[in-house]
């Protein structure tokens, strides 16, 4: 039985904050097929294109037929525990701080056997298990086995929490309170057990509709935050930088224009300043302190979420500036990811299709309801994902980009 996570006590100011350490991070290039699967929450293993056998660990050639055609394919998630090892002592600096650590040898239903991380609620040898690929603190894919059916407080298992970014008892900053997602996100985070939700609002002198709804949520605190102002972002970080364990950047600035319009440069500059430079300002102000708090107790800094448009992956002419800005945000986000990884803080990109909001009024359905996006983000945090695709449009574009990026480009706007 998992012991429920206790509400963390206030920090002892006389005690040094532990510096983040990472589990071993070396992987072969081929092994990043597992990283791709883990990032999106899929369970994929190599499956020989010739003889059809699933293979683990990752190899260059099929051990059965020697074929080099070994694509990654979705695999059945079941398995049986063959043996269990509880590691009490290790020389690895990361795992030393997390002893004891449960591992097991599992025979996968699809064939191969693997050494996996074991959830505390898994039974002894012979038990049926459910396998998943998780990204560990180093951002690398690992196999994780959980009980087949849900157990009480199973999300509080200390090993599982190392693989996820659960909002429970963590403090969250939503950067743009005027975002249509902010209310739904604050509600979903509180439901998931977040200790506090800071909501950034720029230009407090401009009234906004969602203010009342946000005020009504217990545990929500408004903070001044204008992403277009370096000073504003820095000042907020000085106040609450060390209290933010999850940062969710909801910044967006949708202003449709045509590439050849006289004012398009201004529109683009505004959008870039809000989103791209806004993300850069946030990264500079909040990145260092979050990275340094990656091992700050059971509820240390754990995740940075960027809400991005799926059109950042392939430009759509009706929202050309929006697409270009989010493409730049994606690039910046990858940069941020590599920086924050050193502290064990994961960067999650939530790619969404057009939201069912005013700026996408003329776009035909399917559109993404703000609640659906909010729920997907919280689900991604709880499952420890890295790339989340929300809504039919985003999922469709993701699949088609994987298949043929040129076709996505040509068909956009037709």
């Amino acid at each position, binding site marked *: 039985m998992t012991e429920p996570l206790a509400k963390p006590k206030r920090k002892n100011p006389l005690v040094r904050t532990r510096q983040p350490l990472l589990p071993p991070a070396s992987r072969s290039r081929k092994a990043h097929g597992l990283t791709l699967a883990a990032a999106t929450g899929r369970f994929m293993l190599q499956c020989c294109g010739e003889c059809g056998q699933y293979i683990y660990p990752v190899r260059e050639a099929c051990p059965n037929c020697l074929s080099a055609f070994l694509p990654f394919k979705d695999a059945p998630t079941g398995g049986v525990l063959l043996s269990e090892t509880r590691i009490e002592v290790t020389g690895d600096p990361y795992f030393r701080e997390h002893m004891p650590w449960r591992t097991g040898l599992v025979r996968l239903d699809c064939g191969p056997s693997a050494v996996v991380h074991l959830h505390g609620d898994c039974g002894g040898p012979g038990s049926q298990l459910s396998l998943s690929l998780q990204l560990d603190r180093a951002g690398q894919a690992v196999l994780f086995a959980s009980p087949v059916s849900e157990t009480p407080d199973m999300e509080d298992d200390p090993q599982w929490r190392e693989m996820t970014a659960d909002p429970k008892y963590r403090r969250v900053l939503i950067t743009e309170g005027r975002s249509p997602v902010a209310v739904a996100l604050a509600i979903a985070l509180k439901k998931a057990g977040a200790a506090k939700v800071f909501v950034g609002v720029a230009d407090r002198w*401009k009234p906004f509709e969602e203010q009342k709804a946000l005020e009504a949520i217990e545990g929500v605190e408004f903070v001044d935050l204008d992403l277009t*102002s370096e000073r504003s972002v820095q000042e907020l970080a000085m106040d609450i930088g060390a209290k933010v364990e999850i940062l969710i950047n909801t910044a967006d600035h949708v202003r449709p224009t045509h590439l050849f319009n006289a004012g398009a440069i201004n529109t683009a500059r505004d959008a870039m300043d809000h989103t791209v430079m806004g993300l850069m300002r946030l990264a500079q102000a909040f990145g260092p302190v979050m990275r340094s708090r990656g091992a700050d107790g059971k509820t240390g800094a754990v995740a940075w979420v960027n809400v991005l448009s799926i059109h950042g992956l392939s430009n759509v002419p009706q929202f050309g500036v929006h697409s270009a800005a989010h493409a730049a945000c994606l690039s910046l986000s990858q940069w941020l990811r590599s920086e924050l990884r050193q502290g064990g803080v994961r960067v999650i990109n939530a790619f969404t299709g057009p939201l069912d909001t005013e700026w996408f009024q003329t776009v035909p359905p399917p559109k993404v309801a703000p609640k659906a996006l909010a729920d997907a983000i919280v689900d991604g945090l709880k499952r420890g994902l890295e790339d989340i695709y929300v809504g039919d449009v985003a999922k469709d574009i993701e699949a088609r980009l994987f298949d043929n990026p040129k076709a996505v480009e040509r068909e956009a706007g037709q």
Partner: protein
Amino acid sequence: MNGDILATFAGALASGQIRVVDLTHTLSPDFPVIVMPPELGQSAPFRMERISRYDAAGPAWYWNNLAFGEHTGTHFDAPIHWYTGRDLPLNSVDTLPPSDMIAAACVIDCSAEAAKDADFLLTVADVAKWEKKHGRIPPRSWVLLRTDWSKKTGAAYANLLADGAHTPGPDAEVMRFLVGEREIIGFGTETIGTDAGQAGHFSPPYPAHHYLHGAGRYGLQCLANLDQLPESGAVIVSAPLKIQNGSGSPLRVLALVQERSTG
């Protein structure tokens, strides 16, 4: 003779006989700017980003890059700002005659009325009342509308409601009168525009902009400290930045006020 006047003037400044009042708000990122419907172009707010501060990017010096719209903070409107003034000669901030940058000011105190009614409108009757006390408004003078609005901050200052801003300003008739009958050099306010918050609904829309700039006159807005000026007798120094073809600019507005000594 001229030398004597300036020497006297300099002496009066040095002795404090002439007081200099700063009518300018500090340019800061938080100061409200005019808000347009979101699908239209917006004025960039004031922003300051550091180049260096005695650090690796500049070991011995501190300096910043600035960004702002022409109509940010306490600012000047040139005739080219409005379509009615677009074809006039010398209509941009770089070409406007420097002699227009120093002029007398008549201050009409409507602070009591504006305190009661955010939509207070200055009328010809209010001007007549002022003229009864101080005489006819001299040609080429500034008329400054004192509302004490500059003492408000943030949301109360912008006063944006669901149907737009609610801030005091002039009605259409008084602008026609001041520009046509009194030949004022410009009109100044403490609010975000020379026009009232609801002036988009007037006829013509935005009458202060319409009439002032159509006749080659100027606007000053977001002024402060008008309560420190006499109703008559102050001189205003308002020199906008010399921006090529600029429609306006933030500026330092100074008022010179002669102390009325009792001795």
